[in-house]
Structures are given as C-alpha cells and as structure tokens.
C-alpha cells in the first residue's frame, strides 16, 4: 500500500487538519458546504456529507467536485463507508476525506471504501496508523481500492492496482 504523501507535516495540519493524504494534487482551499447548499449552488467545489445525507444526490454534479468530506460524528456510525463507496463506484476521482471520529482501527476499512485523506478530530499515533493502513496483506472481497480479492488471486487473476 502507498505511503501517505502528506504524512505528518505541520503544513498539512494547518490546512483543514488533514493528517494523512494519499494524493499529490493541490488541496482545496475553501471550506466544504452541506449537501443541500451544494446542490443549490454552482460555485462550491467542496462538499461535506453528514450521516443522514444521500451521497447519490451528488452524482449529477461529480464533475465540479474536488473534495468530498464524509463526517463520522461517532466511529460506530458506519453510513459513511457506503457513501464513500457509492461515490467511487460512480467514478468520482476527487479527494474523499474522512473527518471526525476517525480512529486507528477504522483506517484500513476506510481506505478500502475509497477514502484517500483523513482528518481525525484527535491526532493519531503515526506508528500505529502506519501499521493500521497495512493491516491486511490481502483482502477477501472487492471494494473500490482496486485490490484484487483473494478469490480472484486464487483463480489466476492479478492485483488490479487501479485507484489504490
């Protein structure tokens, strides 16, 4: 798995408290708006999904989005995983950021669901996080990280690479 591009540098902290970022394009420099506000206007390029929002409301507008933040008010609320996958499955290639109650033990699953940046409310131990991102040598099921599942590898398929 790729190393985060903007691991622990202090500059990243000032820009939206992003602790881990797995992409090297410019970060969006303005705050994300709500889904309702976003759908009703044209000039924002960053949007924030709350647990009750329908990620599919954004699908008509993907070409003008550079950043989607998915908020996890509590780590136990897993709706954000589905929101993330739905966006990636629809071809969204911009930044997908997990924000809020983002903890060590959710990082690997979030990565598999298409998140490529992480802004935890409480800064994480970098060593523990590194181990967490690398938890699974292989994976059982297909997601949107381009990794070939074990059942594909067993039958001669190759690791897809893809957007992971």
């Amino acid at each position, binding site marked *: 798995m790729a190393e985060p591009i903007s691991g622990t540098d202090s500059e990243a902290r000032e820009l939206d408290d992003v602790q881990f970022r797995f992409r090297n394009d410019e970060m969006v420099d303005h705050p994300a708006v709500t889904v309702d506000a976003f759908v009703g206007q044209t000039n924002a390029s960053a949007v924030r999904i709350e647990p009750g929002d329908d990620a599919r409301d954004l699908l008509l507008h993907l070409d003008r989005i550079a950043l989607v933040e998915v908020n996890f008010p509590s*780590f136990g609320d*897993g*709706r954000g*995983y*589905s929101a993330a996958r739905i966006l990636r499955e629809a071809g969204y290639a911009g930044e997908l950021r997990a924000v809020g109650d983002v903890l060590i033990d959710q990082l690997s699953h979030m990565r598999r669901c298409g998140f490529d940046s992480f802004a935890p409310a409480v800064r994480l131990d970098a060593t523990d996080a590194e181990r967490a991102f690398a*938890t699974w040598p292989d994976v059982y099921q*297909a997601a949107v990280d381009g990794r070939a599942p074990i059942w*594909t590898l*067993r039958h001669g*398929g190759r690791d897809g690479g893809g957007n992971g």
Partner: protein
Amino acid sequence: MYQYDRYDQQMVDARVADFRDQVRRRLDGKLTEDQFKPLRLMNGLYLQLHAYMLRVAVPYGTLSAAQMHMLGTIADKYDRGYGHFTTRQNIQYNWIRLEDAPDILSELSTVEMHAIQTSGNCIRNISADHFAGAAADEVADPRPYAELMRQWSSFHPEFSYLPRKFKIAVIASETDRAAMRLHDIGIRIHKNDAGELGAAFYVGGGMGRTPMISHLVREWVPLDRLITYAEACLRVYNRYGRRDNKYKARIKILLHEIGAEDYAAQVDAEYQHLLDQGVEPPFAELERIRTFFADPSFVQGLSDGVDQSDQAFAAWVQQNTHLHRMHGYTSATISLKPVGGIPGDATAAQIHLMADLAKEFSFDECRVTHAQNIVLPHVEQRRLYELWQRLDAAGLATANLDNIGDIIACPGLDYCSLANARAIPLAQKISQRFADNGKEAVIGELKLKISGCINACGHHHAGHIGILGVDRKGRENYQLLLGGSEGADTSLGKITGPGFDEDGVVDAIEKTTELYLAQRQEGERFLDTYRRIGMEPFKEVLYG
C-alpha cells in the same frame, strides 16, 4: 470439510496480530474502554458479570476432530474446564482473562479457527443446517454457500459498523432445522423446474424484544449472483437502518417500517447497480469450495437396520438419530442436556471424547446444533451400539432430543450482564421434574426454550413452550409463552398471562403438559394440540 489455504491462514494470522496490538494499546491506555469495546467485540470478547467471555466461531457449525480437541484444550488451559455451546452453533468460555485472549486466538489459528465477528454490529458467523451433507431431504449441501459468505463477510470494509448485529443462516431443504426464518437474512437453496440450484432470500426475521418472521424478498437469486445480491441487501440496511435507538436498529424494524416491498425494490435497484461493479467472486471459487464438501468415502451397499434389543439403546436410537441420505448410515445427536444439567455445557474431557468419537465414527467431523447439542453426521448403523456404549459411559447418551428435557437456555443471570433472571437453575429444575415424574417420554416432542431477558438469546419466542425471565420489582419473575416454533411452520409464542416465580413456573409447565396429555388426539405433538384447542383451555388450568 473446508480447509484453509495460505490466504485464509494469512487473514486469520493477521487478525491475531491485529488483536494483540489492540490489547496492547488498551493496556497502554491508548484506547479508552469505549474505543476498545467494539474492537474486542468483533473478536468475540465480552465483559460479563465476573470475567471476560470469549465466543469462538464455528463456521456453519462444522468441526474436525482436531478443532474439537483444541476447544477442549482451551477449556482446560484458559477456562475452568468447561465450554458452553451456543444457539448460533458457536462455543463460548465464561472465565477468560483479557491478557490471555491474544494467546487463545493464536492457539485457535493453528487449527484454522478464530473468534472473528462472533459479536459486534457486523455480519456474524454464518450458520447452517446441522445435518448439512447428511440429511435425506436436502437438494444440496448448503455449506459451500455459507463458506463463500464467510469469506465475503470477513472484515468487510463497508459493513463492519452496521446499525446492529447481523445474522445469516443457510439451508438447502424444505424442512428448516436452522431457524432460518428468524435470522436477519435466511437463505434457502432450492431447485427450479429445470433442475438448477438458486437461492431464495428471506430478510428481516429475528427474536429479541420485537420478534418477527422474515419476508421472502427474492425467490430466485442465481448462484453466480449470490454475493452481489447479499451486498445489495446489506447496503440498503447500512444506509437506512435506524441508528437512533439500538432496540429498533435491527433490519427487521427497517422492513417493518418501510414495508418488505419497498425494501425489496431498493435492494433490487442497488443490485442492478452492483452487477456492474465486479463484486461477485469467480464461479470457479464456488466450485473450489464445493470440492471440500464432497462426500466422505461412504461404504456402499450397506443395509439399514439396527438391533434394538437393548432397551436403553433402542430409546436413544429412536430419539437421537436422524435419517441419513446413505443407506446404512445415520446422523447421531449427542445430547448436552443430561437430567439436571446445564444446557449446552460440556467438560473438557467430554469435548475431547466427542472429538475422538468424531474421528472414529464420523469421518473426522462433528457439528454444533443451534439447539446446543453435538451431531456426529455420518455414523454407520452397524457401529451405532458401540458408539452409544462409549457415550453412555461418559454420561453423554441422554435420549431426549427435542423432548422437554432438551432445553435451550441462555447463560442468564449466572453469567450475563444483560440478564434480568437466571435461566440455568430453572432449566435444571424443569429437567429434573420431568425426569422424576417419568412424563418426558410420554409427552414426546416438546421444545422448551428459556431466555433470561428480553434479548431472547434462549429463543423463547420460538419454543413450543417459551419462558422469559423478567425483573419484577427486584424479584425474578418468569413469563410463560405457548405455541412458538422455529421449524418449517415458524410461529411466535404468545404469553399466557401473569408471570410466575421460579417454582411456580415449573408447576405451571407441569399443568400445561397435563392438559396436553388429557386433550391430545392420535399423533398430535404438544404444538399441534395447542394449535387446535388454542390458548383458552391452558389459561384456565393455569389461572382458573
């Protein structure tokens, strides 16, 4: 049976290392108990009244002798010499130290076992018919499909933080022996007119505070679309299941609130979308898994029939064996319900013995049933007497399968931090009462199930007679339910009226069975008589 390859082994090993690291961070104070709780739960570790409890997964209830031996070893080494088999075909240990848990998982991994997803708000261990691959009435062995789903659901990145726990059962016969209709998803493999196999999906069953029987959501899912359809079912639930109230968070409530048709339509839309997403395994994987469940080397041409001149043996044969699809074989159930015993408990020595017997008599295989017993699925009838003698010598030959002594009971207030009342001592008293009065065999089939609280781990809603323990002004009180069933004719029990104290409920059950004996017509089980005459006569003898 299924055997790990290097990928499966690697995943379990990774989980052990991961959990060891989580325990370290908890002991270092880097994880709060609130943060640690869902992580340990996903590894089957509960904090109970007196100690940690570890629940070990037995995928679709199937165990080899080596695995069964390991369960005995763990009982000896890390528990107080007991294991407790559960209603979801798993085993749990009630006296575990947190510090030992990573080592236990490590030992389990040496025999291809784990405690993955035996708790937590995730897809739990997949259960199946305990006579899978042996029963005469099956269209196929359901376990390859359960194994495929085990892999798919293990560490699923999208479905590890669901609104609530999620239980799946797979069967492949008309007769439901796995309480399939009382699961979040029940899958029935069946054959169409062209002789092809497909899967019917039933969604939204469950017990707990709001018991519901599942809805048929799709009659036919092709086998090469099984995972895609399951993924769609789960995604709709993950997105729209309630998260504001844990008692309304199971998928049954979602179906109840939006309606089964609306749910089915949403699943269908998601399914159509996911068909293009490449989530389905190659069909070759299902074929690979099937080869592990090929028939053992049955002796061909055996004839049926057992010398039943020994009366005690005859009683056991009639009660505890099940029709096998091969002539000359039978499936034998070892009752873990001795008179006055703790339902589902076995000592380390008994577990080791059952492992040996699985090896010697049943092609190295045994099963855990959801009724908390152990099955030896493939026993030659001509060796049955020898098997019975070995069991009898170890106190494991109780001939009471499906009778009133074959009680399902949760651990109750003796162990569980959720319980309102004790279940085990009550089960012991009932079992003793009906052994003493000699009525057990006369009454015949009567499934009695006890839960120590409304969460219904003891399946009281599905008992022909169900008992629910409640707390009434600081005293244990027991409600009586009649008429539940988990079989092909699934129904939910109804409460008779005001509850009883512990001795009172034992008397009430005796009165209930006496009325049945007085009223029954030729060939009627207790359940049949109840359904024919209704609740009123029972109320009269109980409260009149």
